[in-house]
């Protein structure tokens, strides 16, 4: 069964066979729900202030309305950090950031204390991060309260000391000791310098700002690009803050440039396609970047559905929006060209799509008539209604999108016939309804041929060549044979000459089930159909013919119960009849009685038994001991095991030794006395 399905491949082709036509879609609810899942508070708080800030910032950027309520714990933490004199610079800044979003109640004295601390650390700063946090803190204080004066008197000097850390390729170093430079540090530096410019009490020297613009231009020269137009800033070195990768480096640079663009009145003249590339990079990573206010807003053209059915008359829909999903200015989308994948055909259409304001999609109501089923690449162009918008929005020229056009393929003139080999005359011929139910019953012998033929026609009326066209013959014993149905341009036909196939069929005569499979990814009605059966009469197998391969065993039987095993035991030995055994038992006891009789005859006596009490008891005990040991042996044979027996025997043995020694030594002394006497 699995083999059948394996042959019927009705998978859709993978989009974007070439990177040139990747699809990007703007921020959606899936991003928002992912963010909510990622940032879920534990016990009403996020842990550190940094995490709290990141969570709140993400919710704000993505436009999530329903946030978890962590206000009380966060505000408490903020107030603590801002009022304590031992907080680190970084913690102060994070606390201020959280305060900026949550707007906790902070007194002006607290702000004054923070402001003096920040200014002190700014004067004492010697690394880029120190500058960054001090200036950033001052900016936040400025935003949150007007009661404190945060302006910098010596802004020029600070500007120059930060600029001293820059390098000729546009990157920045983190401190003067550290020779390694990075894009990440460049972003931080730009943000800091923008802050300095905005905090300056007097105008900063214009030449300094001009050199900074040059630096930014040099930084953009070092941008990395993918083939599909995405651009990003990469980090080659691991810096003090750890290797964060292209995402954080690009985000840092974009943040810096945004901040700088906001404080200068002049334009930055950044290359438009690189900004679009950055926007695509952030979208491609799945996170919206801070490309909001870069000056040029990238517009993304997206399609909700890239598989269209010709038979169902699907309409082509196109959406144009900004990176974060907000709507684009009034514009129109034109379908310029249609390329057919895999061939050089290209038809020039130049048709404008109709704009549906309710759903804000551009719709192509009817596909051009010459679009056949298959893979195509549609080339779109965005045309602004107002030419002014061209300055503010970046479209990226022609956008190529792969479209997969499917349709119902008609099967015509399907018939199956049995032909006589020599003359080619038809013995039986049956018409088939495909793809429908068929149950033909044919019979043939090895001198005849089987012919199957049909035509495939697309909705546009052209001949169609599917990926798969197989004919399968399955014997009742399970042996299967598969043949590919060849086509001759117009018609699909297969002729099975049984004379030549006799050996392939392992000379198995009998009933063969016929099955036809026709399939393709653009064919909406691909099918795998049993057509009926054919009784084949093949000659008998000669001696040396190949055996049919063994059929696979039902996989479930491997784990099922196995056959019952009947054990064959050795035949038990013959035992003698009971009476014989008993007779011999009596016979064995006879010598014993003979022994007793002989003892009597010899006048054996126990006159030497001791007369006095103590020796007499010892003598009795001796005999009792021996009897006990023999009784123990009898018990050992009947039921005890060796260990118990040995244990008891050891005790009895010790007793017997003692008693026996006493008795025998008494006897010995008695006989010695007699001898001497």
């Amino acid at each position, binding site marked *: 069964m699995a083999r059948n399905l394996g042959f019927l491949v009705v998978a859709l082709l993978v989009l974007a066979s070439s990177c040139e036509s990747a699809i990007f879609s703007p921020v959606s609810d899936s991003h928002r729900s992912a963010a909510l899942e990622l940032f879920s508070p534990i016990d009403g708080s996020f842990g550190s202030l940094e995490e709290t800030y990141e969570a709140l910032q993400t919710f704000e950027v993505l436009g999530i309305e329903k946030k978890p309520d962590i206000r009380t714990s966060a505000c408490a933490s903020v107030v603590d950090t801002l009022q304590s004199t031992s907080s680190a610079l970084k913690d102060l800044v994070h606390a201020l950031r959280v305060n900026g979003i949550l707007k906790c109640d902070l007194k002006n004295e607290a702000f004054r204390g923070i402001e003096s601390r920040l200014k002190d650390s700014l004067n004492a700063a010697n690394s880029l991060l120190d500058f960054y946090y001090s200036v950033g803190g001052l900016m936040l204080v400025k935003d949150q309260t007007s009661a404190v004066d945060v302006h910098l008197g010596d802004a020029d000097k600070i500007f120059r000391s930060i600029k001293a850390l820059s390098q000729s390729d546009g990157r920045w170093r983190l401190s003067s000791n550290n020779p390694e430079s990075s894009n990440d540090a460049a972003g931080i530096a730009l943000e800091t310098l923008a802050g300095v410019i905005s905090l300056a009490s007097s105008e900063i020297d214009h030449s300094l700002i001009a050199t900074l613009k040059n630096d930014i231009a040099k930084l953009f020269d070092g941008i990395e690009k993918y083939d599909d137009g995405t651009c990003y800033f990469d980090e080659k070195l691991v810096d003090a803050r750890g290797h964060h990768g292209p995402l954080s480096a690009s985000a840092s640079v974009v943040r810096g440039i945004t901040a700088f663009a906001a404080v200068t009145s002049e334009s930055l003249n950044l290359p438009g396609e690189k900004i679009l590339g950055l926007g695509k990079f952030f979208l491609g990573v799945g996170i919206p970047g801070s490309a909001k206010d870069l000056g040029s807003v990238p517009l993304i053209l997206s399609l909700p559905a890239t598989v269209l059915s010709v038979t169902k008359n699907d309409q082509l829909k196109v959406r144009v929006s900004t990176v974060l999903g907000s709507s684009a200015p009034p514009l129109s989308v034109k379908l310029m060209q249609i390329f057919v994948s895999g061939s050089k055909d290209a038809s020039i259409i130049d048709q404008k799509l109709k704009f549906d304001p309710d759903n804000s999609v551009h719709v192509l109501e009817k596909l051009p008539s010459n679009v056949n089923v298959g893979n195509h690449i549609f080339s779109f162009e965005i045309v602004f209604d107002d030419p002014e918008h061209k300055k503010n929005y970046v479209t990226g020229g022609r956008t190529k999108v792969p479209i997969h056009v499917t349709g119902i393929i008609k099967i015509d003139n399907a018939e199956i016939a049995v032909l006589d080999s020599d003359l080619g005359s038809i013995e039986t011929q049956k018409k088939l309804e495909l793809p429908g139910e068929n149950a033909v019953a044919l019979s043939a012998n090895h001198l005849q041929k089987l012919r199957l033929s049909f035509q495939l026609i697309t909705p546009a009326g052209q001949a169609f060549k599917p990926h798969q066209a197989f004919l399968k013959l399955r014997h009742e014993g399970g042996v299967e044979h598969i043949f590919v149905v060849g086509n001759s341009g117009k018609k699909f036909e297969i002729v099975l000459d049984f004379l030549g196939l006799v050996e392939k069929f392992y000379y198995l005569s009998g009933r063969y089930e016929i099955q036809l499979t026709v399939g393709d990814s653009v064919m909406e009605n691909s099918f795998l159909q049993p057509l009926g059966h054919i009784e084949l009469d093949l000659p008998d197998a000669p001696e040396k013919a190949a055996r049919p391969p063994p059929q696979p065993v039902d996989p479930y039987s491997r784990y099922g119960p196995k056959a019952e095993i009947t054990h064959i035991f050795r035949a038990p*030995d*013959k*035992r*003698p009849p009971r009476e*014989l*055994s008993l007779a*011999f038992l009596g*016979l*064995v006891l*006879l*010598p*014993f009685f*003979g*022994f007793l009789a*002989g*003892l009597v005859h*010899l*006048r*054996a006596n126990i006159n030497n038994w001791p007369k006095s009490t103590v020796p007499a008891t010892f003598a009795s005990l001796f005999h009792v001991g*021996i009897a006990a*040991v*023999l009784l123990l*042996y*009898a018990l*050992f*044979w009947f039921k005890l095991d*060796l260990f118990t*027996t040995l244990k008891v*025997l050891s005790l009895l*043995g010790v007793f017997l030794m003692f008693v*026996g*020694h006493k008795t*025998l*030594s008494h*006897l*010995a002394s008695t*006989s010695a006395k007699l001898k001497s006497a």
Partner: protein
Amino acid sequence: MGRSGTTKDAQALFQSLRSAYAATPNNLKIIDLYIVFAVATAVIQVVYMAVVGSFPFNSFLSGVLSCVGTAVLAVSLRIQVNKENKEFKDLPPERAFADFVLCNLVLHLVIMNFLG
């Protein structure tokens, strides 16, 4: 003629043996009787085995060896107790008897284990 001669000789030999045997001390005669008893038991067991087959073999061995073993121990007792034996002059017969009892007990422990 020869046959009667041999028979007569055999009879005369037998008589002399009998009379010589009568002279042995009584205790030795008791031991001899015991030995005869043990051997007779062994022979009967062998005959039984010959009739019914040797299954279970270990039981047969156990029985036969018990008889043979105890006969051997009795023989050694007889040697040690015999006063005419110069070699064991200094060995008190009680000591020999104690050895006999001990060895028999050990033998029968092994026999009972092997009997199965």
